């Protein structure tokens, strides 16, 4: 890991974690949602760093383009950001820290495959398309059905009951 590849890695990691921390800690709901977007962009940059360019772009489209807008719209519609920030139930932090410590301990003990560190062929869109259409045809149709069901479900849930 020479100096040159650590620098982008460190910068992106910093951005992602800063965004995530802000999303978790900021009292103002809208600020949290926007810093969540920052965290998503950081994760997308990670995907670029790891050579999965297509997934990074899909991440930006799906999360920054759609999920963040959905969250923001829900904040608008429920006006739940009406000034008084709900108290923070600080009981959750030690639990999260415990989970963090446990996972890091597990990480340090496991012998991860050293891996050829990027010898893999870069993820081409063509490659993804072919694998999607060959080995993963049925999961693709299943995800299609799931998404349609989610779409219909969301609309039914939110539709005004015609009194």
């Amino acid at each position, binding site marked *: 890991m020479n100096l040159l590849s650590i620098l982008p890695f460190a910068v992106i990691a910093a951005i992602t974690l800063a965004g995530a*921390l802000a*999303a978790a800690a900021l009292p103002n709901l809208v600020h949290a949602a926007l810093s*969540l977007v920052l965290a998503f962009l950081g994760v997308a940059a990670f995907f670029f760093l790891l050579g*999965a360019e297509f997934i990074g772009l899909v991440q930006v489209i799906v999360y920054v383009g759609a999920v963040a807008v959905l969250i923001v719209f829900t904040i608008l519609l429920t006006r739940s950001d009406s000034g008084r920030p709900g108290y923070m139930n600080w009981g959750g*932090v030690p639990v999260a820290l415990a989970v963090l410590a446990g996972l890091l301990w597990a990480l340090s003990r496991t012998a991860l495959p050293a891996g050829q560190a*990027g010898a893999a062929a870069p993820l081409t869109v063509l490659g993804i398309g072919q*694998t999607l259409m060959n080995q993963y045809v049925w999961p693709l149709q299943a995800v299609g059905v799931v998404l349609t069901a*989610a*779409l219909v479900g969301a609309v039914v849930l939110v539709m005004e009951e015609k009194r």
Partner: protein
Amino acid sequence: MGALEAVIAVSIVLFSLGLMAVLTRRDAIFMLIGIEMMLAAGNLNLVAFWHYGPHPEQMTGAMMAIFAMAVAAGETAVGLALILAVYRHRRSTQIDQLNTLKG
């Protein structure tokens, strides 16, 4: 301390931040933000293991990440629809006020 360990460490921290968001917040939308972060951490793990894993040409990790993203988007849509439906009846999204099921 290889590159893989570093990426995994970052995703672990991201995951625990998401968990913290879910646990400490009273607002339902905040919980969703926390869940989104945990899902993103999961995806990051998948792609990292695909990139540094033994058989990158099979693209299993990448495929899994793509499908996880698709399903997560669907899940968020339904989650937010639920919050809106609850909000319409209870006029608030504070979780601890939604305890009418309690005996």
